[in-house]
């Protein structure tokens, strides 16, 4: 199949946009652009995880281009905000967003999962600039991020510590240990973000391991939980959730985002089979036009 080139956004210009609704529209476009890049890489390599990466496109894009204070040319800047991708299998989305943000050249993305690459199958902090913690085994992210938030407290720093969990991490007992511990220590600016697509590897979370009523559970564990479930595939909604976070004083914070696994390709959405299956020629040819059409529609809006 001939790959149609896409119109790429000037991501550095986007960072300077001050009109919030304009910026939201640009970010929505950028997230879709990243989703297409991920789709292309996964097809090219024949290995990697599509479902969970597509699910988190808008969340990771909005974090790095709107919410977090970072310095891509100084990745170790001590005051930077931290982000941990606890669902490490979504690595391709993190890499694509980081390269767009300026941490490393976009040309490097196609080295994903090849020998000598800095882009490991799952994120590795000592290989990839911008990656704050190596993940892959599920269930570590919240504990580690709690450690970062506690560091901010001990070192009298003001950085935010964000962690993104999927349903799978919330199956792990360790996550609930961390939920209890975070409510005990209450470090400031610790935010648990949940990519709540309700689909895991083997099936829907309702059949694999039901998590509902999730907001009530988190509240019962003494967390401050956002008053609504936001649309995690909608940048304007994610921005709204950030507005809410900044007004809070009772820590830690949990925000649940309704998302769709495999978002953007209709026959892959909400289907566990596309958790980690390679994207073959046929499905690539069927899926890519859908992604391109959405990108085109977003262009009109922005």
């Amino acid at each position: 199949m001939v790959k149609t080139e896409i119109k790429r956004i000037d991501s550095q210009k986007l960072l300077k946009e001050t009109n919030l609704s304009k910026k939201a529209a640009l970010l929505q476009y950028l997230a879709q652009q990243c989703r297409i890049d991920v789709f292309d890489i996964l097809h090219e390599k024949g290995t990697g995880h599509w479902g969970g990466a597509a699910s988190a496109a808008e969340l990771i894009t909005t974090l790095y281009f709107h919410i977090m204070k970072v310095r891509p040319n100084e990745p170790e800047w001590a005051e930077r905000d931290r982000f941990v991708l606890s669902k490490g299998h979504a690595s391709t989305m993190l890499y694509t967003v980081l390269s767009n943000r300026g941490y490393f050249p976009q040309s490097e993305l196609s080295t994903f999962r090849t020998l000598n690459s800095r882009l490991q199958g799952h994120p590795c902090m000592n290989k990839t600039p911008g990656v704050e913690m190596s993940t892959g085994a599920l269930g570590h992210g919240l504990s580690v991020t709690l450690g970062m938030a506690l560091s901010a407290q001990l070192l009298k720093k003001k950085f935010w510590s964000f962690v993104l969990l999927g349903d799978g991490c919330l199956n792990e007992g360790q996550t609930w240990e961390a939920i209890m511990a975070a409510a005990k220590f209450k470090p400031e600016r610790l935010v648990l973000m949940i990519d709540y697509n309700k689909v895991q590897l083997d099936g829907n979370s309702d059949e694999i391991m039901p998590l509902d009523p999730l907001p009530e559970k988190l509240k019962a564990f003494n967390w401050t939980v956002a008053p609504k479930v936001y649309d995690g595939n909608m940048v304007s909604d994610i921005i709204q959730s950030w507005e809410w976070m900044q007004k809070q004083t009772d820590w830690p914070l949990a925000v649940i985002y309704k998302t769709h696994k495999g978002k953007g390709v209709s026959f892959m959405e909400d289907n566990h089979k596309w958790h980690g299956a390679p994207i073959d020629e046929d499905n690539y040819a069927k899926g890519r036009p859908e992604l391109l059409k959405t990108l085109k529609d977003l262009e009109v809006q922005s």
Partner: protein
Amino acid sequence: MTNQSIAMRDAFGQALVNLADKYDKMVVLDADVSSSTKTIEFGKIKPERFLNVGVAEANMVDIAGGLATCGLRPIVSTFAIFLALKCTDQIRNVVCYNNLPVIFVGGYAGLSDSFDGASHQSVTDLAIMRAMPNMTVLVPGDPTEVQTALEIALENNGPTYIRLSRNPSPILFEKQPLMEISKNRKLSNGSDITMAVCGIPTFMAIEATEKLMKLGVSVDLLQVSTLKPLDIDSLITSVSKTGKILTIEEHSVIGGLGGAIAEALGKHCPVKMDYIGIEDVFAESGPYPELMAKYGISVNAIVDRVKNSMEK
């Protein structure tokens, strides 16, 4: 050797207190056993740098990982059995994979939690910790080495495991040079057999050496306080002279000191080897010295094993 004994855990609690001001980035974490491991002594003087995370060891290790990424120097303490077994994934995937400077202090190791029984006795921790890339493994041989081990770990830019016992141990090295990383301590010069020992059985090996000397067997005795990276050179020098070696440890004979030395000598200088340690079994409840003796770790067991090997 003096007659004075100090419990290894008390030496540890005291060392934390002694080092608290020198290392102001030090944060101590414990999992609801701080009164037993004695980290509570640090908690009393530096409450803001002491985190009791409850009975959730895996979470504790990863919190420490997060602290280490931000420049703090976490010391994670609980019983060795729980550290090595309930946190293996966290130690491997978060701390060692990222080469983070987290210090693990496994208390109550070996059979030293003797009355609590096999559920609490840690005889595979060295095998596990040693197998992790980037990990440094230290085993102090007497109470005076505990603080030195901690200082070595605090100066190390990667993960360190320090294995401690619960019980009193005679003071052996008070008047000797300080323990150094990857340097075996020569405790006796001999030519008939090499003995290599780590941890609490060190005092037994010293006594056994004296007895054997009286029986006409001269022992080259090395105390190994760093299992990884191992000081191979002094072992090679010794066995080149004696032609045989007996290892002695309060750990399974699989994968601990004996395993480490067998790997090294097998490659560089193969000689006859024998191992004293817990055979491949679970032990049981009982008083510590009797328990050690029943499972083959005692002065007499060492003497008998050497005598046997000399007859062959």
